[in-house]
């Protein structure tokens, strides 16, 4: 029995793949396995190929994904064509034997580039391009277990047994694949029932149909193949686990953090966060409302951020969330928030750019933009989270920092994190603090909202009883337009020096985490969602005698220069590298700009697919053997 497994479940968009993944993750969580999964999909609603790449472990909560996989659960022929090269020799393919005759160029949804590559390959291998010939080849030459199930027959059987119209019955393909995988993994029937019941809570008929078909397939596979890829019982010991996406945890963090106004304009991969908040807009306890959150879909992102700024001026904790194209539209208003010292939070999920780019793929290519967006100079805090738990706490802290320093806070995340679903232990709410800074909720008369006495002025909010003015123009202490050069110099400097204050006050350890032993002599530097892959790669590298450490940047502005320099100083510069999801190695550039430290090596990836710990390991080795820049490209 194995202690962990990597697998892929694939199918066409809209065919129920997410259900399969949810059921699988829930069953696994029920059995206390740690799970992480990434979802890859096209910018398309129905028909294009989508897949879940999942890793489950009985020893730990896994932090990253890797290749090759041990199992492919294919809802359609395209899945097999797309992924078979990532299956380990001896691995398992669950596929639909009723579409065996499909050929690779008979599938219009496949990218032409991929089809062409495969056709070349198949002709070299002497295959005829059909699913059948491929599967035969794989079991023959590569020892694969080709578990063909006739989905069509199974569905027809089901349809007639429960008298469902064919169209509706076909939705149960996802259940077939789920059942087959569960059988191979040796998941218990109770965990399967638990998953079905919690996924379809309240829909009894659907539950019972599912149980029927799942049970049938489960037994069929178990009986025919046995639990070939059975997972060892889990060593983990959590009485409960959360199953959450990155969007979910940020939403939860914001709710715990006191968010009261969230405006947004729909955009991938941010919109699900607002959807989650809206579903929880009203929070009751003991029969009475203890919190209510206004969630507003605006006409565009300009309105989203502008109205969030407006809400923040009243003292409500206010945020908006978006991705690159939306943020690009927000930069003018962002500058107003900077000028008027408004604690507004922008949750920024990066996706593949530039422009529309790869709207459903991941990237970390907006760092320098987020740091310098908007004309003129004003301070801002930029936070970035490396995993789900960090994202939860950071979502709360974003408000605390925004209010403490009275400046906009950009919380940078990315599609990888947003859409990956993990099992997460419960966060520790007792560690959470709500700090509102110099907020003044009750006052009266005209007040100096921009008093020069302290770096951070008193924050009289609209409705507090005070009368205040605000202007995007340079203003005096009262908020009235003022073009006097001496006032200009003082106001400008005070605003900018708030950043110095934040730099003095926010502990370095809050901003940067160092992972690794004192004896490490290779240093990887990164930010955001590369964290998991890097930590896993480091572990793996130990096996090759390479002692690597990781410096993870979590608050990027103000940049923790002192601690960073102290750390990096200990390493030979030939053995330090940045790891990032972009072309330019932006964090590397930023570090050079801010600290003057030149990190001469980089491992980058910009295909839109996550960095896998497997490819990262070899990337590090290539750097250590003299390459300056390694471009990773794995993943279909």
């Amino acid at each position, binding site marked *: 029995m194995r202690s962990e497994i990597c697998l892929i479940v694939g199918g066409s968009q809209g065919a129920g793949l997410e259900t399969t993944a949810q059921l699988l993750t829930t069953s696994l*969580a*029920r*059995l206390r396995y740690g799970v992480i999964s990434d979802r890859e999909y096209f910018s398309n609603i129905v028909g294009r190929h989508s897949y879940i790449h999942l890793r489950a472990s009985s020893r730990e909560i896994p932090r990253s994904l890797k290749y090759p996989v041990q199992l492919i659960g294919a809802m359609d022929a395209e899945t097999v064509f797309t992924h078979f090269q990532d299956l380990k020799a001896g691995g398992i393919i669950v596929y639909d034997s009723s579409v065996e005759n499909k050929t690779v160029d008979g599938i219009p949804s496949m990218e032409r580039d991929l089809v062409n590559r495969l056709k070349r390959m198949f002709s070299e291998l002497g295959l005829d391009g059909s699913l059948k010939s491929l599967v035969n080849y794989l079991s023959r030459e590569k020892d694969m277990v080709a578990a063909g199930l006739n989905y069509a027959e199974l569905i027809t059987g089901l349809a007639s047994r429960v008298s469902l119209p064919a169209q509706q019955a076909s939705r149960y393909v996802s259940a077939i694949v789920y059942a087959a995988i569960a059988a191979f993994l040796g998941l*218990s029937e109770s965990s399967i029932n638990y998953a079905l019941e*919690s996924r379809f809570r309240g829909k009894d008929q659907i539950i019972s149909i599912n149980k029927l078909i799942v049970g049938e397939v489960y037994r069929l596979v178990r009986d025919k193949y046995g639990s070939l890829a059975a997972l060892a*019982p889990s060593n983990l*010991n*959590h*009485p*409960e*686990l*959360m199953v959450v996406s990155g969007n979910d945890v940020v939403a*939860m963090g914001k*709710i*715990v953090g*006191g968010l*009261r*106004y969230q405006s947004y304009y729909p955009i991938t991969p941010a919109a699900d966060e607002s959807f989650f908040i809206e579903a929880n*807009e*009203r929070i009751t306890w003991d029969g009475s*409302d*203890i*919190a*209510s959150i*206004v969630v507003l879909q605006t006409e565009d992102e*300009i*309105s989203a951020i*502008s*109205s*969030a*700024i*407006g*809400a*923040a*001026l*009243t*003292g*409500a*904790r*206010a945020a908006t969330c978006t991705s690159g194209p939306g943020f690009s539209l927000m930069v*003018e*208003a962002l500058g*107003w928030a900077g000028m008027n010292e408004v604690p507004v939070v922008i949750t920024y999920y990066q996706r593949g750019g530039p422009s529309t780019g790869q709207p459903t793929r991941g990237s970390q290519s907006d760092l320098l933009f987020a740091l310098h967006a908007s004309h003129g100079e004003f301070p801002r805090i930029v936070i970035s989270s490396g995993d789900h738990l960090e994202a939860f706490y950071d979502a*709360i802290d974003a408000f605390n920092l925004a209010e403490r320093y009275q400046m906009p806070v950009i919380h940078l995340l990315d599609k990888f994190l947003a859409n990956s679903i993990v099992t997460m232990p*419960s966060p520790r*709410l007792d560690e*959470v*603090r*709500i700090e509102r800074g110099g907020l003044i909720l009750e006052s*009266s008369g005209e007040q100096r909202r921009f008093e020069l006495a302290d770096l951070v002025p008193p924050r009289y909010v*609209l*409705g507090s009883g005070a*009368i205040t*003015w*605000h*202007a*995007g123009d340079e203003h005096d202490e009262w*908020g*009235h*337009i003022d073009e006097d050069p001496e006032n200009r110099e003082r106001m400008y400097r005070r605003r900018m020096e708030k950043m110095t204050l934040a730099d003095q006050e926010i502990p370095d350890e809050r901003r940067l985490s160092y992972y690794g032993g004192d004896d490490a002599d290779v240093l990887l530097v990164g930010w955001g969602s590369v964290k998991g892959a890097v930590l896993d790669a480091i572990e793996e590298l130990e096996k090759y005698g390479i002692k690597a450490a990781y410096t993870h940047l979590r608050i990027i502005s103000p940049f923790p220069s002192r601690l960073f320099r102290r750390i990096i100083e200990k390493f030979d510069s030939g053995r330090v590298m940045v790891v990032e999801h972009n072309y330019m190695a932006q964090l590397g550039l930023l570090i050079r700009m801010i600290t003057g430290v030149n990190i001469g090596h980089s491992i980058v990836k910009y295909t839109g697919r996550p960095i896998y710990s497997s490819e990262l390991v070899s990337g590090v080795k290539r750097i250590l053997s003299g390459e300056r820049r390694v471009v990773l490209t794995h993943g279909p």
Partner: protein
Amino acid sequence: MAPSPADYKTGVWVDWCPGCGNFGILAAMYKALAELQLKPEKTVIVSGIGCSGKTPHFIRVNGVHAIHGRAIPFAMGIKLANPDLTVIVNGGDGDLLGIGAGHLVALGRRNLDITVILHDNRVYGLTKGQASPTLEKNLRPKALPKPNIQDAVNPIALALTSGFTFVARGYAMMSDHLKELIKMAISHRGAALVDVLQPCITYNDIHTAEYYRERVYRIEEDGWDPLVRDPMERREKMLEALRRSMEDDARIPIGIFYRDPTRDTLEDRIAGRLPSYLARPPALQKIEDNGRSIITWDIFRKIFAPQFVETEKVP
């Protein structure tokens, strides 16, 4: 003691051109605020950028001088987060109908209780007299190198088709009449637009005070009753209001074109979903208790129950 218009003045020097129609609008606002006895601390004026955008600095209520074209979304956030506040937008025709036209249309769709006062001088004042969206085709006010080649948009018709439930037009130089319109607009629950014909003495040598003096007339003198008493009346009233908004410039009606108190506001609709919204809106909710979130573990566990999986006991 009831406040006087003078109580709403700030000490800030009003730096509009002497003779600018904005002075008339400002005077009407002082009077309207005083007569409505609006509390300065509970009132917010939000503006865009332009000569008109400076208005908040001259009025002793809360002022938010936002960015060009975005006064409406700023105002929306303020109002939604704290519906206790009376929120008024002052903006130019370039601001509200050019760069900000999309937000105007969206406000109509929402019927949020905000009053928009449109300083309609048919030019871009602060950038030195270019054509604004309300300038008719072929006209050439003095700063244009060539006559205007774009048609004018009709603010009354646009507001009506966008869903504003109070739509009126005033004239800056008829300050008392304008004051009454502003009072009614502020008192109206829902999105209100007052299009104010505003001479720009420096750049608009066509639509001068004389020009308007000869042309404006009161719409009610024409026998128009703008009030929608029943939702069934909406369509006919609106069509008639539209008709009246399409006079050519020979006669310019001022007064209330349309007034529909029967439509629910966005606040009402939110309150339908969040019963405690009006009593404890976002700005007035407590979010922490001694530095701890009010979302305690028990509450957390309850609201996010769907995200939790109870694991099977270790055998």
